């Protein structure tokens, strides 16, 4: 408590205007109440009241004094209201934590710099409070106190100093030497270890770790100027920084990281360094040199004379070839990866072809890296390895030098640090292989101008469970400058999706506000579909409401004029009158406008049901349903599918109708209608799903009714309540109208196996799926889906027959539902127990 007595005299202690907080091994932090008191005395104009700053003395379990400090940052617009509370062991305990130093720095800032602030609150620094006691005040209560961080608790204190206080201290202590060794061979071994460890860090970052705790745990990256004397390391660090920077901006622009906000947090990190933009030329020069070194060491003796001027990469000539190769594939991987991430950002998908070529090269270099692992293990710098290399972050298995993941934690937000376990080097290589394959799928995409095609592409892409970076790139491709692929205006996309004739896309109706809103909805739908499935489902549930509203708004206008989408028409009509002053023309245009609105409205409904279906089926992928809830879920899927099929069919009929009217005389058209009308394959595919959903629903209902299994029991939640909880968003949006718990009960309450055996939906599904094969012969994705449907149908057909025969007779039958053939449609497994 030395500081206190000194401060109380009020003579020597001064409040610094630009506070510098002492730290180091010799500093012992003590009760700082006197400093604050002094600060208040020095600056009488500072109003300090309330309980924002609180200091408590006492002994904790470790028998040492602790101090709690809390304040509210409300002093200017720059600081929003926020509470921070720290507790440190002192004075017998040396505080090795930057959190406390930062806390005191900020507090000094508040008191000394912002002298005019009226709302700094500070309590009288009660010295007679007991351990852990709290002061309660206007702005400080039990809830606020929960933001307390306990300093030196590794679970809570991100500022805890474990090895070094600063990067400079780490460097001074020799944690990141340059050169890495005066022995050329060891130097190159260590550089390779750094390259490998950085790959592990980068993959861990992509998987959700913070940049500061992963890639930028590398001291060499943190001090860009230091590496300039080491060409190889320097070029590698530059390309790493630039690649990270490109990826951060891609993810930030795409905003697909809603729940992975750590990803783009790069505050205080040297992500953009002068000269990094030239990283490729520097990398190229280094690559050239090493290529020559490799050539030189491989050349037969007779030719070596010519290459004599080439200095070897390292000192052990027997190992020269192995090291040259190991370094080269690592450098080339970085080069191609950088090309991939930049080419894919070119507008309108123009760089995709080139990116694809670089992806192939990247994968090739990754293979070479894997091949180099054996050589590196055999000649590693750290001697023989006892443990396996499976969980090591380098190919050689050696611990790399120059890394400290705790150095940056102080730049993290004042929240508890997240535990990060680095991926192993092998897993990192696997991660990048997966990423590149995912990116390759994006690059191979044909940029289908049909919206439905784009939707299917994203949905199919999500089946591969792409990680954040790949999802960001698909989103950047789909939506650019408010257009599909940056080239198709949303209204044109809507017209095509609604199966309107080509000319419609130039119609003035696109200037209408509602149409504009619809375009925005479409963009946000595409974006949502690119996010992780957990967040995607929640967001889809919410946007359903918007889609419903836009539909209802348009229909509400019907009453006004002309029978359909009155509001839109009205706006348009006004515009025409103004422009041409000719009312006679309006009726022709009204007809066209009517037609556009009619098509769009049906399509909006279809799309809304599509979103509802996606919302429901994602619940299976996220394992949100229990088996006892499957019956109601399949019932809901069934009713949504019926509506979806109905709207899709209507849309197609309307479009056929228009095109036929155009091409044929009226009497021919009427004749045709009865003769050769065929249900479109897209609708029949939906019908397949309807059969499967119905079959599952009825099979589950029969099991519930007859075998008394899969019932929603539990002391606290009735089945009806569960129904409402699961489907409240659909119910709120009236999707579909009149769908309720009671209609579900009505459909399923009387289901019996005896009835099901007569009418087997699975058989219908199987038959229809087989028939549809011919229609989708050119679409491998859909062919695969048909096969899955057939498998589900076939499997369930057998199960249903078995249950019909034995179900009630053999109560010992064990029935479970599995997703072995299809992610959303279960198959029943019937076993004798």
């Amino acid at each position, binding site marked *: 408590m030395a500081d206190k007595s000194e401060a109380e005299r009020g003579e020597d202690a001064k409040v610094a205007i630009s506070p510098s907080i002492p730290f180091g091994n010799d500093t012992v932090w003590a009760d700082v109440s006197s400093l604050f008191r002094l600060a208040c005395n020095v600056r009488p104009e500072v109003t300090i009241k309330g309980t924002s700053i609180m200091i408590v003395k006492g002994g904790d379990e470790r028998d040492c004094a602790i101090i709690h400090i809390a304040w509210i940052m409300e002093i200017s617009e720059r600081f929003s209201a926020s509470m921070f509370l720290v507790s440190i062991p002192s004075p017998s305990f040396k505080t090795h934590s930057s959190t406390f130093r930062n806390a005191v720095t900020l507090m000094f800032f508040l008191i000394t710099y912002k002298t005019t602030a009226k709302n700094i609150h500070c309590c009288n620094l009660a010295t007679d409070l007991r351990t852990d006691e709290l002061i309660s005040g206007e702005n400080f209560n*039990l809830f606020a106190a929960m933001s307390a961080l306990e300093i030196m608790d590794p679970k809570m204190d991100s500022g805890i100093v474990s090895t070094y206080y600063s990067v400079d201290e780490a460097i001074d202590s020799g944690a990141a030497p340059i050169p890495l060794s005066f022995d050329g061979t060891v130097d190159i071994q260590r550089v390779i270890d750094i390259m490998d460890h950085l790959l592990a860090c980068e993959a861990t970052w992509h998987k959700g770790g913070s940049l500061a705790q992963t890639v930028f745990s590398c001291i060499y990256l943190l001090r860009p100027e230091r590496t300039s004397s080491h060409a190889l390391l320097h070029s590698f660090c530059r390309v790493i920084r630039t690649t990270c920077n490109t990826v951060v901006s891609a993810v930030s622009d795409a905003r697909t990281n809603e729940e992975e906000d750590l990803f783009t947090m790069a505050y205080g990190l040297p992500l953009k360094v002068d000269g990094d933009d030239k990283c490729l030329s520097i990398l190229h020069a280094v690559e050239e040199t090493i290529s020559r070194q490799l050539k030189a060491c491989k050349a037969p003796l007779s030719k070596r004379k010519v290459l004599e001027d080439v200095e070897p990469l390292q000192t052990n000539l027997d190992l020269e070839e192995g090291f040259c190769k190991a370094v080269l594939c690592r450098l080339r991987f970085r080069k191609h990866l950088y090309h991939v991430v930049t080419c894919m950002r070119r507008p309108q998908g123009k760089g995709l072809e080139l990116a694809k070529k670089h992806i192939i090269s990247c994968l090739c270099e990754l293979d070479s890296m894997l091949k180099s692992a054996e050589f590196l293990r055999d000649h590693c710098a750290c001697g023989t390895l006892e443990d396996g290399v499976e969980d090591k972050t380098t190919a050689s298995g050696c611990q790399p030098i120059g890394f400290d993941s705790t150095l940056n934690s102080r730049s993290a937000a004042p929240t508890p640090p997240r535990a990060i376990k680095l991926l192993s080097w092998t897993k990192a290589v696997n991660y990048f292989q997966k990423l590149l394959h995912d990116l390759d799928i994006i690059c191979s995409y044909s940029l289908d101008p049909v919206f439905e095609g784009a939707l299917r592409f994203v949905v199919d892409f999500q089946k591969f469970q792409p990680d954040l970076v790949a999802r960001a790139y698909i989103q950047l491709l789909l939506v650019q400058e408010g257009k599909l692929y940056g080239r198709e205006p949303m209204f044109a996309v809507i017209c095509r999706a609604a199966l309107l004739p080509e000319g419609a896309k130039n119609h003035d109706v696109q200037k209408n506000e509602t149409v504009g809103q619809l375009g925005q909805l479409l963009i946000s739908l595409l974006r949502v579909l690119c996010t992780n499935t957990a967040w995607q489902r929640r967001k889809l549930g919410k946007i359903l409401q918007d889609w419903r509203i836009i539909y209802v708004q348009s229909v509400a206008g019907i009453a006004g004029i002309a029978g359909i989408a009155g509001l839109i028409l009205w706006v348009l009509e006004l515009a025409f009158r103004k422009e041409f002053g000719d009312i006679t023309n309006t009726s022709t245009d009204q007809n066209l406008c009517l037609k556009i609105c009619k098509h769009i409205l049906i399509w909006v409904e279809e799309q809304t049901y599509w979103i509802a279906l996606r919302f429901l089926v994602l619940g299976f992928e996220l394992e949100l349903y229990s088996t006892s809830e499957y019956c109601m879920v399949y019932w809901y899927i069934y009713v949504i599918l019926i509506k979806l099929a109905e709207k899709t069919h209507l849309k197609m009929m309307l479009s056929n109708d228009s095109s036929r009217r155009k091409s044929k005389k009226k009497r021919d058209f009427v004749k045709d209608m009865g003769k050769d009308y065929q249900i479109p394959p897209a609708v029949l595919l939906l019908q397949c799903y309807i059969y499967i959903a119905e079959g599952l629903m009825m099979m589950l209902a029969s099991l519930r009714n007859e075998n008394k299994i899969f019932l929603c029991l539990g002391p*606290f939640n009735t089945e009806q309540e569960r129904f409402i*909880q699961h489907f409240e968003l659909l119910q709120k949006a009236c999707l579909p109208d009149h769908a309720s718990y009671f209609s579900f009960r009505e459909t399923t309450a009387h289901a019996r196996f005896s009835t099901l055996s007569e009418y087997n939906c699975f058989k219908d599904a199987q038959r229809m799926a087989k028939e549809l094969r011919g229609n989708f012969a050119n679409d491998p994705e859909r062919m695969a889906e048909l096969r899955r449907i057939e498998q589900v149908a076939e499997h369930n057909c057998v199960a249903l027959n078995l249950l019909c025969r034995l179900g009630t007779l053999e109560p010992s039958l064990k029935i479970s539902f599995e997703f072995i053939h299809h992610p959303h449609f279960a198959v029943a497994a019937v076993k004798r127990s």
Partner: protein
Amino acid sequence: MEAEEGKAEFEASEIEYVSYGGEHHLPLIMKLVDQELSEPYSIFTYRYFVYLWPHLSFLAFHKGKCVGTVVCKMGDHRHTFRGYIAMLVVLNPYRGRGIATELVSRSIQVMMESGCEEVTLEAEVTNKGALALYGRLGFIRAKRLFRYYLNGLPSAEAVVSRPEPNYSASGLATGDEAEGLDEGINSVLT
């Protein structure tokens, strides 16, 4: 005392359930939670719950030893009076014998009597035991929260239950959530 497989031997009737009774219970709760749960909490977090809702926290004792605890809160959440189960812990050797179910049921009972329309909680997706327990009580898995926990586990599920039998749809959320914010994170109390 402890049988094979690390399980304790005891009769269900030997377990005594006590409502939070004061500061002397606090160290017991803290020790259990600190030991078994991944999330770090300061003493003030515990205090927030047990001071404001002491009647919603329960402890289970076996021969004087605290072997389980539940810590909860309740309050308005978007026009719904909602209960929230913050922490539930039963020591490993005492698991599988219905202690957690009893603890949670007691809390929910009090919540219902106090007018709660729904009860929510979050659990780690990998914690199959907890998910099954809550499932049996009638909780539904309402949503999955990606990277919710600090221990780096990829995701967690929030489960919602509405214990009020005559649940009314008028009490539904109004959809006024902040755009882009994770609602699960918003509802976190620590």
